[in-house]
């Protein structure tokens, strides 16, 4: 579910491909009526989750290259976090949880009456086994969980952490597939197994696999009464937006998430087709902001970053580059609609819509940037000229850059767009060898702002320019006040205390602006309602609608019903 791959353009889709097809994209497709429906007379739907080219079988829920339906559809977590709106975690394999006072012990009550798809009963022992396997196998432990688990009886398991770990909660409860002990304890090598016959608790189980397509079938003994209702789910791979659009229009695909230009026009002749737009990823200018860690260029001056923030005309950007589908973002980098409660200062709720060139000019003047003869400002012999990188073929981002270059001219900032191959672009971000880069801020493990602020702003998640950054703080931002507040928020599960910490962070980052938000980019998901109905909509956000979203897919697939 890398957003980058889920976003529109074909190059993106290609870049995202392989690695991501596993983790990132979910495709669900319905067997097209055009293809004659399913053999058994039941309902089969076809999903396109962004997989391209040859699909490689891998149902290992610990693997970074797994197939996306592994998470949520075949294997389930303890709880499920709905990132589409503010809500409490939904119990799946767990029923409730409780922390001890200092956040070092987490006790989980597990669900009774759940069966693995091979008929064995699910118990708290499986949960304990899963977390201990993670702890003992560093190769699989991509989340760095270091909890030892012990099942106290068949329905209770206790996880013990070495330090206060409230912020591990979404990872433990909502982002870890539980595997059956009786199968996984027998495996020779859990690291490289592709887990050919996955035994899970999910609503669907694997029926057949080929390198071009795979088929999941209903798990008849699924624990939730009356679910799922759709008999079979077919996943297919398509190479590019062109093929995806064609497949959608011809009725081959029932559920997919691709950015298709002129979506309204494409779907106009087809009453069965509909789409939903669920903006979630904040497109931002990532700046290499920290001169102390080796960043070079005018963007290391906060006034320049502020000026860019005010000089851009977001309405025009949305019209020309965002297809009019983008939503308004927030300078706090949170989602204004979902996270309003977390944004301390209502002035920071949303970004401006139009350009405020006066404000931008004022900021630059005050910072000592003087307009030169060629219309570009200068300071101490340095021109206010920056390169902004994006990836070849990300056509909307390229349009964004072109448009912003024109808009920034008005305040004496020269923007030089460059397009790079994904590899190089990514390498530059990781190593900090860029001035400005266009990218987006993704969804965290839960809606708690910690999962936006910690990876992007904490000093722990960055390093000097030239060295690959382990975390995602590509901006090289380092601010002791922010670090302190992040730690404070992590040390408690008291939301009032957290809010206070986030208020501090927001004040700092709105002033320093290491990531300059543009807008919340659209996530378009297209449906064919002729075979199945009941997908998430903007009125009913029971899950994130995108077909590439792990975990949420399991919820969507067991909720939808065959069309009348």
């Amino acid at each position, binding site marked *: 579910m890398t957003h980058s791959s889920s976003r529109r353009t074909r190059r993106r889709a290609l870049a995202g491909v392989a690695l991501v097809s596993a983790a990132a994209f979910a495709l669900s497709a319905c067997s*097209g009526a055009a293809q004659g429906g399913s053999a058994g007379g039941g309902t089969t739907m076809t999903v396109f989750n962004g997989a391209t080219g040859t699909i490689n079988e891998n149902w290992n829920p610990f693997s*970074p*290259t797994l197939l996306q339906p592994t998470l949520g559809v075949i294997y389930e977590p303890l709880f499920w976090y709905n990132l589409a709106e503010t809500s409490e975690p939904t119990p799946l394999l767990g029923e409730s949880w409780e922390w001890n006072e200092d956040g070092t012990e987490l006790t989980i009550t597990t669900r009774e009456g759940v069966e693995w798809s091979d008929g064995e009963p699910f118990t708290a022992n499986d949960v304990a086994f899963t977390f201990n396997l993670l702890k003992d196998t560093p190769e699989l432990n991509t989340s760095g969980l270091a909890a030892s688990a012990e099942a106290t009886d068949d329905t209770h398991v206790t996880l013990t952490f070495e330090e206060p770990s409230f912020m591990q909660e979404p990872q433990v409860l909502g982002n870890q597939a539980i595997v059956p002990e009786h199968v996984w304890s027998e495996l020779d090598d859990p690291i490289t197994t592709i887990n050919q016959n996955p035994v899970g608790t999910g609503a669907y189980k694997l029926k*057949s696999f080929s390198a071009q397509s795979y088929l999941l079938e209903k798990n008849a003994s699924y624990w939730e009464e009356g679910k799922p209702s759709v008999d079979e789910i077919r996943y297919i791979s398509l190479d590019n937006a062109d093929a995806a659009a064609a497949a959608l229009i011809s009725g081959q695909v029932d559920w997919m998430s691709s950015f298709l230009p002129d979506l309204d026009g494409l779907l106009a002749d087809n009453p069965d087709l509909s789409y939903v737009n669920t903006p979630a990823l904040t497109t931002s200018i990532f700046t290499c902001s920290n001169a102390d860690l080796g960043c070079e260029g005018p963007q290391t001056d906060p006034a320049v970053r502020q000026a860019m923030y005010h000089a851009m005309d977001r309405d025009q950007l949305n019209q020309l580059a965002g297809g009019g589908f983008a939503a308004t973002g927030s300078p706090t980098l949170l989602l204004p609609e979902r996270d309003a409660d977390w944004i301390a200062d209502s002035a920071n709720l949303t970004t401006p819509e139009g350009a405020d060139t006066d404000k931008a000019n004022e900021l630059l003047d005050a910072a000592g940037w003087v307009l030169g003869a060629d219309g570009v400002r200068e300071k101490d012999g340095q021109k206010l000229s920056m390169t902004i990188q994006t990836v070849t073929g990300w056509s909307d981002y390229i349009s964004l850059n072109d448009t912003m270059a024109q808009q920034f001219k008005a305040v004496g900032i020269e923007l030089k767009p460059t397009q790079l191959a994904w590899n190089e672009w990514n390498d530059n971000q990781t190593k900090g060898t860029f001035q400005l880069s266009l990218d987006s801020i993704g969804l965290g493990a839960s809606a708690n702002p910690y999962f936006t602020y910690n990876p992007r702003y904490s000093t722990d998640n960055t390093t000097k320019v030239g060295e690959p950054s382990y975390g995602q703080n590509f901006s090289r931002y380092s601010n002791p006040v922010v670090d302190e507040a992040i730690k404070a928020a992590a040390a408690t599960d008291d939301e009032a205390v957290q809010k206070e910490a986030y208020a501090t962070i927001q004040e700092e980052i709105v002033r320093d602006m290491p990531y300059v938000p543009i807008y919340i980019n659209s996530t378009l998901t297209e449906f064919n309602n002729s075979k199945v109905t009941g997908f998430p909509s903007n009125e009913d956000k029971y899950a994130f609608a995108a077909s590439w979203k792990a975990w949420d897919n399991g919820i969507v697939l067991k909720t939808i019903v065959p069309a009348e």
Partner: protein
Amino acid sequence: MRFVLQKLGFYAVALWAAVTLDFLIPRLMPGNPVDQLVSKLAQKGQVTPETRRAIELLLGADLDQPLWQQYLGFWGQIARGDLGRSVAYFPASVSDMIGQTLPWTLGLIGLSTIISFLLGVGLGTFAGWKRGSWVDNLIPSLTMLQSVPYFWLALILLYVFGLILGVSPLNGGYDPWNTFPGWNWAFIQSVIYYGTLPAITIVVSSVGGWMLGMRNMMVSTLSEDYILTAEAKGIHPRRIMRAYAARNAVLPSVAGFAISLGFVVAGSIVAEVVFSYPGIGNMLLQAVNSNDYALMQGIFLVITLSVLGANLLVDLLYGVIDPRTRARS
């Protein structure tokens, strides 16, 4: 014998050059697989310093070895037929991935090349024999088709036949809804159905070249003295065309054909991308896009070996068929 040895020597050098190139190129590229995998995971949300360590362990990344050691190791691997593990498709092995895609490419592009060759040589023979006939006049327009960007033509045909007329499938190698890969008639039928339009586009855009080459050789051959002699002897014109002219004229085309068979694997990338065909070219592009060194190397090696193999075969065969070649070397 000297001829054969000389040829083999050449191929040894070519092989060495290709393998060395194959070894070097991915190592000169920016980024490394660990960073790539980490970044892609990062987009899922959860990335910590531990993630990176886990991925490093998982991939067994060992980029700290000196280059020459890696190089020797690379030759060792090739000798063992072990092409390593794909990163993008971890834990699948490169040979498996190639094995999965190669048959599709060989089937589609290979067959189209053969059809194109037979058709082109047939028509070329006729055009050369009857210069100025309608077939002959077809040649300029067919060559013009060669100047049309292949993907452009293919996209238009796909749009017209697939989406507007609906007589052709839109993508893929077979119908995944109603058939399952295997030796069953439904699947084979579906493969043929799905392969028809791609094959037609390939034939249409390449037949002109064969035709022109054959026609020109035919014309040259027809002015040879032995044709005159044959005519003077009163041999039936059709026999002259086939047994005297065409048989000699086809020699360069046969050489070209064998070479182009070698390039079947290489030339398929664009076609496979347009039709979302599950072949090796498509996979090469994916490997490039996901920085999958091992997979890239493996595919490049397979392509190079097939080209070298085809060339070697032609050279050796040619020495047998056409003794003049031997003499000249």
